[in-house]
Every structure is written in structure tokens, then in C-alpha cells.
């Protein structure tokens, strides 16, 4: 799976990096996002809602967050 490493960057950089990777992904393809900006808990679901991509998972631990977003079919 394609992985976007946004560790150490702050909003809005993680979403910008993810958007660029999603734009290169095929419809239905999942993309992983690594981030440690806590705002990703709000940003990622909101961005997926706004853009029509599917938020498959968003988990966190001491090292940060791992999100999985599947590109929408549109």
C-alpha cells in the first residue's frame, strides 16, 4: 500500500501530502497516512467527508496516527 509519511508536519501539510498521493492513486485504491499532529483526528474525517474519499481507519498510539483512506470512485 502506498504510504504518505507526514510525521513531524503540522496542519495543513499532512492533508496536502495525502491529497497529492490520492490524486495519483487509482479509484478504490487505499493510501496510508502517518502523522503525529493531533489535529489529524479532526482534519482527516472532515477532508474525507468533503472530498468523497472513504476513511477506512484512523488509529493512534504514542508514536502518532495511522490513517487509511480509499480513493473515491469518482
Amino acid at each position, binding site marked *: 500500500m502506498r504510504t504518505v*509519511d*507526514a*510525521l*513531524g508536519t*503540522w496542519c495543513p501539510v*499532512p492533508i496536502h*501530502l495525502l491529497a497529492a498521493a490520492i490524486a495519483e492513486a487509482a479509484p478504490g485504491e487505499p493510501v496510508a497516512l502517518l502523522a503525529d499532529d493531533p489535529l489529524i483526528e479532526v482534519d482527516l474525517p472532515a477532508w474525507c467527508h468533503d472530498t468523497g474519499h472513504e476513511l477506512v481507519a484512523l488509529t493512534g498510539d504514542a*508514536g502518532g496516527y495511522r490513517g487509511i483512506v480509499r480513493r473515491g470512485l469518482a
Partner: protein
Amino acid sequence: MVEHTPGAYLDHGAATAIDPRVRDAMAPYLDERFGNPEGLHDRSRDPAGAIDAARRDVAALIGADADGVIFTSGDTESRNLAVKGVAAANAHSGGHLVISAVEHPATVAASRTVTRVTGALTTVAVDAEGRIDPRALAAAVRDDTVLVSIAHGQPEIGTVQDVGALVAAVRGAGPRAAVHVDAGATAGLVAIDVGAWGCDLLTLGGGSLLGPRWAGALWVREGTRLHPLIEGGLQERGKRGGAHDVPGIVGLGEAARLAAAEMEARATHMAALGERLIDRLLRVPDVRLNGPRRGRVPGHVQVSAGGVEGETLTLALATRGVAASPGSACSAAGKASPVLEAIGLEAPWTHSAVLFTLAPSTTAAEVDRAAKAFAEAVAELRAMSPLPG
């Protein structure tokens, strides 16, 4: 046109001329190809494509994937990014760092800064030729070690480490620790294969490639946690913000491409002339070679001359038209070099070192002039010394 006294320029480790082919590749990006590589218009396409090509050329030189290459302002920034970036990104899982006793001052300083409060820094001793013992390195690795830094080629005494064996030793001791290899003195002169070595990060700079010294790169293996040092932009996938130095990056890429093709010829030429220089310098009484006779960075020669102070000797060489550096190419202070102390030298040997660094353009005649000037200068200074000879 600047006129120089005919002599010998053997200070290429401190500064060397950019290869004319590299300069030609850079020139358009200082002129008509000025566009912002991040832009969305026609002017952006060529600079963006040139950066991609440079990324591939740098990656090819070190046996790496292009996606892992982060462009920087040179090897000093790369060292700082490696140390501070890995430490910050792994602060949750430990903060212990391991370095060797012969690391570049930038690696030492960055490691001390990161561990200023905790003191969680272990420095591994080296032998009399500057070599790191894999067993000693492994013994220094702890459960909370996040980074181990190793200089592939030592920039003062020229020792080349067996990086593959050292990385394997670290892996056996603590699989969580990332390994950073500093190839600032060796890239383009000694073969590098990050895949075979198994390291996680590698520093290189333009100087050893005959490219711009103000351009460098840090290669990072996928999955290695790294925070940016310079923030504020999307450049380099968020790991190094700030406008791209397009001419410098293009120059670094072209220099890497040429170095990959010409490495064997360059290294053979420089090593042979380095041997010639060592032979002639050691004919002067009471002179010792610092670092190993075999397994050194090609064309890298540091000697200490008994009874002579290194900076004074370097000035005496300069008056004879010979450019060299006192002790280290990176600093000239009254203190003894920590690297020379690490290999067991004591005063006055630690204060009497002179470093000669050759280039592919160096000639045998230059080497011979430098050796002759060295013999004369040492004899003159010893004759002036109030100390018994």
C-alpha cells in the same frame, strides 16, 4: 583573473572547483529556467523535471530508491537533519544516541544538542587507526537507542569504515535503532550501496562529487521515522521546507551522475598520488601518518610533524605556494583535535597535524612540489624552534 603562486593546491577537502560539466548543467537554472518547481504553469515543468532527474542520479550513486532522497543545503544540514529528525520523531520510544569517537563535528554537535538534558549519548572508542570495532558498537546499543551514527570516511584522518559489518552489528544488538551513515567525505570516491549495507539514512554533499558544496542530500529508508528540521512548506514531501535550490540540486545530480561513471578512475588516480605524497612526506625525519596506510579515503593525507605546530606549518607551506589545512579541514583552533585524541595521539603530535586533500585534477608535479615545500618548511621551523631538536 586571480593570480596564484605556482605551487600546489591540496586543500580540496575544504573547497574544490566545480566540474565545468556540472557548472554548464547548472547555468540555465540561474537564467532562463528560473521557474518555481512547485508551480502549476509552463515555467515550472522544466525545473520540476530537473529535480526529479537529479533525485534519480543521486539515488543511483548510492544504490537507493529515488523517493528516499531529501535535498538539503549540504552535508552539514544532512547530518543535522538525520540526528535531530530521527531523535524528534522517536522521542516516544527512547532518546539514546550512539556515535563513534571520530564523527564529523556536525554529527557530534547535533547529538550533544539532542541529548543535552538527558545525557543519553554514548561515544564509542576507536583503535589507533580510527577504526570502529563492531563488537564495541553493538555493546553501546541499548533498548532505548534510536540512532547510531557512523562516518564512512573520516574527514580528518581518512579512515574508511567497514560499514556493512558495523550495520550488521547494530542490527544484532537492537533492531529498533536506525543507522545513519555519513558519506560526506566518500561519496563519489568510494562505492556506496545502502541496500547491501542495510543502513537507514545516508548523508552526502556536493564537495566530494566535484559539485556545489552548498547542495547535499539525506537519503532515508522508507519506514524510518524522521521529523523535518526546516518546516513551513511542502517541498521534499514536507521533510525539508523552503524554496528548492534548483541550480544547486541540478548540479548535485549531474555531479553524482558523472561521479558514478568516473569513480574508479578518480579514486585510482587520487589514491596513487596520495601514496606518492605519503612516501615523500614520511622521508622527512620525525613525521607520522595519521590514520591507516591502507583503507583510507583516496587522496586524503594527514601527517603530524614532530616539533612543529600545525597551523604555523600550514602558513609556512602557504608562503611556498602550497595550500593545505591545519589538522582538520573544518576547523582550526588552538585545541587538540578530538579525532587525533581518539586515536591515542598526545601533545605535541595532536597540535602538529597538516591535512592534504587531493582531487582528480591533482598532478604528480603538484604532489612533488608540496612534498618539497613540506620538507623545507619543517626544517626551517625546527631550526627556529627554541626547543631542543
